[in-house]
């Protein structure tokens, strides 16, 4: 069995042929943007993580009195105390729980919107976005009032509730966009060939919506890791997450190098996870019959 003869290479509709110059010109602005606003700050952070904290915030210059002040102190510090690893782990757990809950809540909702009459869909999507019309902090404060009577305030549950509430739209939208594009003929074909309702969901709808699940999960998981306002307002003192830790270094402890180190380690962690997820999602890549 020859699996890929030259005449039958996979046809990827996204890969149309373009002149190299055009491609280069088109990709120049985003490349510049990424270099300026992502790579450069990241490099600055790497530098900062190696420097010494200044007495009143800021950083001690890398070269002082002809002496190099760089060191790996912050990294040593991070790995010498369990508390940091624990906070990292807790943050990832909270992010994972939030993502999972968002997925469970968002999937049926996105499915219902995608299945509703074409005329109503835009309105329903608008309703999903409506909370963004009011201020983020006000909405979190509202949860303080709502959760107060239930003895849930200042617990991890309050944090997760707030996280889910804030990030739900970021899960709904990509899922809806994906589900809306499903060809209803596929479900009819499955039904015609003997698949009941549950089977149709597990064998057709769910696998086809994986791209939406992945992008929704990324849009929820990553911001949750950096979120500090919600744990601060709704969580107890023991519920702080990486976001709070980083914020504290920069604003309260005036330890910029440690803050930079924590941010970098967070970025590395997220990238590692994203890489693993991409690998897991590989078996099925795009393409419609």
């Amino acid at each position, binding site marked *: 069995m020859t699996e890929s003869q030259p005449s*039958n290479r*996979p*046809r990827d509709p996204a890969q149309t042929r373009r002149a190299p110059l055009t491609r280069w010109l088109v990709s120049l602005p985003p490349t510049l943007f990424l270099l300026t606003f992502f790579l450069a700050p990241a490099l600055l952070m790497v530098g900062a993580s190696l420097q010494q904290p200044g007495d009143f915030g800021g950083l001690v210059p890398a070269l002082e009195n002809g002496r190099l002040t760089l060191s790996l102190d912050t990294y040593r510090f991070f790995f010498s105390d369990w508390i940091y690893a624990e906070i990292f782990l807790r943050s990832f757990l909270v992010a994972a729980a939030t993502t999972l809950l968002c997925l469970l809540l968002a999937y049926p909702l996105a499915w219902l919107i995608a299945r509703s009459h074409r005329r109503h869909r835009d309105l329903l999507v608008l309703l999903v976005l409506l909370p963004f019309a009011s201020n983020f902090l006000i909405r979190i404060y509202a949860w303080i009032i709502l959760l107060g009577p239930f003895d849930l305030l200042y617990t991890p549950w309050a944090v997760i509730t707030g996280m889910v509430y804030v990030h739900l739209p970021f899960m709904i939208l990509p899922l809806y966009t994906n589900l809306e594009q499903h*060809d209803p003929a596929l479900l009819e*074909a499955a039904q015609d*060939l003997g698949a009941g309702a549950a089977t149709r969901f597990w064998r057709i709808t769910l696998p086809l919506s994986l791209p939406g699940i992945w992008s929704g999960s990324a849009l929820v998981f990553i911001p949750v890791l950096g979120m500090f306002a919600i744990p601060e307002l709704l969580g107890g003192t023991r519920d702080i997450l990486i976001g709070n830790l980083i914020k504290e270094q920069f604003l309260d402890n005036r330890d910029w190098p440690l803050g930079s180190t924590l941010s970098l380690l967070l970025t590395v962690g997220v990238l590692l996870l994203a890489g693993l997820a991409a690998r897991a999602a590989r078996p099925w890549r795009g393409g*419609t*019959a």
Partner: protein
Amino acid sequence: MALLEIRHVSRRFGDLKAVDDVCLSIEAGEFFTLVGPSGCGKTTLLRLIAGFEEPDTGELLLDGQTLAGVLPEQRPVHTVFQSYALFPHMTVAENIAFPLQMAGRSPDEIRHRLQDALDLVHLADKARQLPHQLSGGQKQRVALARGLINKPRLLLLDEPLAALDAKLREQITAELIALQREVGITFIFVTHSQQEALAVSHRIAVMNAGHIEQVDAPEQVYGYPRNRFVADFIGTVNLLPVEVREAGNDRLRLLVAGVGEIVSMPAAARTGERGAFAVRPEQLDIIADGERPRLDNQFKGTVQDHLYLGDVTIYKIALPNGAVLEAMRANAAPGRARFLERGEPVQVGWRRQAGVYLRD
């Protein structure tokens, strides 16, 4: 007992009668074809059979059992959709094996039957590819194998060849006939193309505006169309408005105003009524002007135009009353597109067995 019995089935969408009082009975092992113009209700009829629509009135029986309230997944009826509807995230093998998994077959049996099905449609080397890596014809064959593999009582094919080019269509049509003979499954085949219908079917049903105009064997539908619609839809036909002069037991005499009288075979008609006479281009003979009449019906005319089609040339012959007949002549001599020129006076004629009288 017929395999499928369709009894006075109607389906409306608002004011539109998509399927209008259709009665059909389809025998086991039959290759049954539905033809008709776009929007005449072919797909709706198939959807009623598959169970995606329920009839407003009437009843469907499969093997004598009513299908009312039976869900599509419970009917031993599979469909090959016009758009193929292959599952994009499953390989060719997974697509084809899907109905077997739904039926709960053992992995061993699935493996065997999958191999057989792949061989049947010549796709063994594509088993692990995804649908978007296939050509149109290959997708079509996957859809076919998927529909056949679990041996449904009835396979519905909704214009499965529509997206293919003429050459491939012809090839797959031939494969389809062979396949149907081989597997012995009853096919209900929908097509726009009357040629395809004539080539593949045991019987053809001609649909128009939701109802069935005629159900017959291909040669009957082509040779003895029951009305103008069928005559016109299946093949090319010359239609001459006529008045019945004599409706005898041994012959029918029809008057064509400004041309003359046609003698035809006896048919249901009443003297004095008006109707149409239908005769096919290949039934017409062209005779040089001045030659003595030797056919039952022979009229003077002039060559108005000709159309060279390779194997045949179509001549348009104008009659004295202005009506134009199309006559077809096989091109036996190579390298010659026509043997008559425009404006040439000729005679056109046919035997009394050719053509049919159609009542209005």
